[in-house]
C-alpha cells in the first residue's frame, strides 16, 4: 500500500525532473475540489486558533454569566451557554487552539520519532532492524487508547501530558511505513552510488533517504492529525485530557454529555467542530496522496 514515488526516485533524489513533477502535483492538487476545500477550512481554523483572543466575544473561562446555565443559542450568544453559564462560542473558539496544537504538535513528535526509527531500521537492516521492528510491533500490539489511559493516569492529565503521550505512542505507524520505503530505496542506484563514493551512513540517510520518504510521511501525517484530534477528544471525554477549565472540544463534549437531554447544544457545537476539522484534514490528506502519487490516476 505504501506506494513509493517511483518515477521521481528513478531520476535521483535531487534530479532535474523534480520541478516539473512538483508543479504537476500542485496542479493535480488544485484540481481536486475536496482537497482544496479541506485546505481552505484548515487555513481558516488556523487563523481562528491564532486570533482566538480577538475573535472570542468573551473570556472562555472567566466570564460567567450568573443564572444563564444551559441557555439556548441566541443572537448575542450564537452557541448559547454551557453548564457553568459561560459563553459557549468563546469556549469553542478557544478549543480550536487546543485541538490544532495537540493535533499538530503530537504529529510532529510522532513524525520525528517514527521517521528516525523507521529510517534506521530500514537502512541498516539486520539485527538493528530486528530489534527496532520488535519495538514497533510491540507498540502496534498495545491497545493504543489503553496505553494512553494508563499513561495519562500515571503522569497526571495536562496539555503537555496529552501531547507527549499521544506523540510517543502513535509514531509506530510512521516507522512502519518509512521502514518499508527505505528498504526498497536502499538498493536504488543513487544510494548505492552514494555509498560507493564513501558517504557516511548518517549523511546518506539524512540527505538522500529521508527526503525521499517525506511525501508519504506528509500524506500519513495529514490523515493522522484528524485521528489525533479525535483521540484527544476521547481522552478528555474519559476525563484524562487537558486540565479544566481549559476549553477543549472533547472536554466541552464530555461536560455536555450529562446535559444531553436538557441542553443538547452544549455537546452539538463542539461535536460539529470536530467533524469539520477532521474532515478537512482527511480531504487534504487524500488530495495530497492523489497529487503526489500519479500511479492512482486514471
Amino acid at each position: 500500500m505504501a506506494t513509493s514515488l517511483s518515477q521521481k526516485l528513478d531520476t535521483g533524489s535531487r534530479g532535474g525532473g523534480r520541478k516539473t513533477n512538483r508543479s504537476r502535483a500542485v496542479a493535480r492538487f488544485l484540481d481536486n475540489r475536496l482537497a482544496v476545500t479541506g485546505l481552505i477550512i484548515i487555513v481558516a481554523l488556523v487563523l481562528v486558533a491564532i486570533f482566538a483572543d480577538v475573535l472570542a466575544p468573551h473570556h472562555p473561562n472567566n466570564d460567567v454569566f450568573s443564572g444563564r446555565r444551559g441557555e439556548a443559542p441566541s443572537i448575542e450568544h450564537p452557541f448559547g451557554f454551557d453548564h457553568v453559564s459561560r459563553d459557549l462560542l468563546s469556549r469553542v473558539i478557544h478549543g480550536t487552539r487546543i485541538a490544532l496544537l495537540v493535533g499538530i504538535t503530537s504529529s510532529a513528535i510522532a513524525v520525528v520519532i517514527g521517521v528516525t526509527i523507521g529510517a534506521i531500521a530500514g537502512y541498516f537492516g539486520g539485527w538493528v532492524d530486528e530489534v527496532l521492528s520488535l519495538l514497533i510491533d510491540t507498540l502496534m500490539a498495545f491497545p493504543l487508547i489503553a496505553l494512553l489511559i494508563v499513561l495519562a493516569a500515571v503522569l497526571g492529565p495536562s496539555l503537555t501530558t496529552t501531547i507527549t503521550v499521544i506523540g510517543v505512542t502513535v509514531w509506530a505507524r510512521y516507522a512502519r511505513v518509512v521502514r518499508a520505503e527505505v528498504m526498497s530505496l536502499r538498493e536504488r542506484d543513487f544510494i548505492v552510488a552514494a555509498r560507493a563514493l564513501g558517504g557516511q551512513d548518517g549523511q546518506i540517510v539524512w540527505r538522500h533517504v529521508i527526503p525521499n520518504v517525506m511525501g508519504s510521511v506528509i500524506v500519513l501525517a495529514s490523515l493522522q492529525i484528524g485521528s489525533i484530534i479525535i483521540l484527544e477528544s476521547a481522552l478528555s471525554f474519559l476525563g484524562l485530557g487537558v486540565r479544566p477549565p481549559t476549553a477543549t472540544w472533547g472536554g466541552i463534549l464530555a461536560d455536555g454529555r450529562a446535559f444531553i437531554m436538557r441542553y443538547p447544544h452544549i455537546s452539538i457545537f463542539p461535536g460539529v467542530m470536530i467533524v469539520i476539522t477532521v474532515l478537512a484534514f482527511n480531504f487534504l490528506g487524500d488530495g495530497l496522496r492523489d497529487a503526489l502519487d500519479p500511479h492512482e490516476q486514471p
Partner: protein
Amino acid sequence: MVKNYFAFRVLKGLLVIFLISIVTFVIMRLMPGDPVYLLLGEGNIQITQEQIDAIHAKWGLDRPYHEQYLVWARNLFVGDFGESIIRMGVPIRQMIFEALPVTALLNVFAIAIALIVSIPFGIWAALKRNSIIDYAASVGSALGIATPNFWMALILILVFSVRLRWTPVFGLRSWQGYILPVVVLATEQMAVITRVMRGAVLEVLPQDYVRTARGKGLAAQRVNWRHVLSNALLPVITVVGFRIAFLLSGTIVVETVFALPGIGRLFTDSVIRLDYQVVQSLVVIFAFLVVVVNLLTDMLYAVIDPRIRIA
C-alpha cells in the same frame, strides 16, 4: 521454509507479548495510589494501619515487585489470571468471560454489517470513478471517520431512544439493545473498509493481468469479479484483522456511553480503580489477540494469493 517462517513469527509474537506484560506491569505500579484505599471507602470510616497492612498482605501487595510479577506471570502461564482486588475474590477469568461475549458480539455484528455494505459500495465507487457515487462514498466515508464515536452515540440515543423511542436506552436484555452500539461501531468500520476497498480496486484495475484478461475478450463483468475482487480483498482482510485485534480500543468509549458491561468498560474501570491484575491480564490477552490475528492474516494472504512469497 514456510514452516520455519511461521515458527519464527510465533516466537517473535511471544517475545512481543512478554515485553508488553512487563511494560504493563511497570506502568501500573507507576500509577500513584493504592487500591486498598478504595476498598476502605471515603466516608466517616476509621482506618488503621493494621487494617491496611492486613489487606495488603491478603492480596500480596506487600511483596517486592519482581516477586509480584513472577507470581502473576507464572499463574498466567497456566491460565490463571488471579483474582480481582476491587471485586474482592472474584476470579478475573470469570469477569472476562462475562464481559467478553458482549464486546465480541457487538464487534462481530458491526464488522459483518460493515463488510456487507462496504465491499460492494467500495467496488462500485471505484468502477464509477469521479461519479456522484464515488463522491458520495468519499464524503460518506470521510464523514464516518471524522465523527467521534462517542458523539455519534449520544446523538443516536437522543434521536432513537428519547425522541422516537424505538430502542431501549440501556442494557442488552433484548436484541434491540444491540442496535445503536452496533450502528455506531459499524459506521466507523464501514467508513474505513469502503475507503480501503475503493483504493484497492483502483490499484488493481489498471494492472497488466486485468488488461490481459480484457484483451483475451473476457466479459468486463467477469474481469471485475474474478481478478479484481480476489486481489482487492487482501487489504480489506488486513483492515478487518486490524479491527478485530483492536476490539478493546474501539469499544471502550461506546461501552461507556451505552452502559454495556463489556471488556472496554471493565478495562477503564479497572485502570481507574487500580485493579492491577485485571488490567495486566486484559492487556496481555489483547496483545495475544493482536499477534494471533496478524499471524492469521498473513496465512490467509498466502492462501488467497499464492503468488505472495514468504521471505
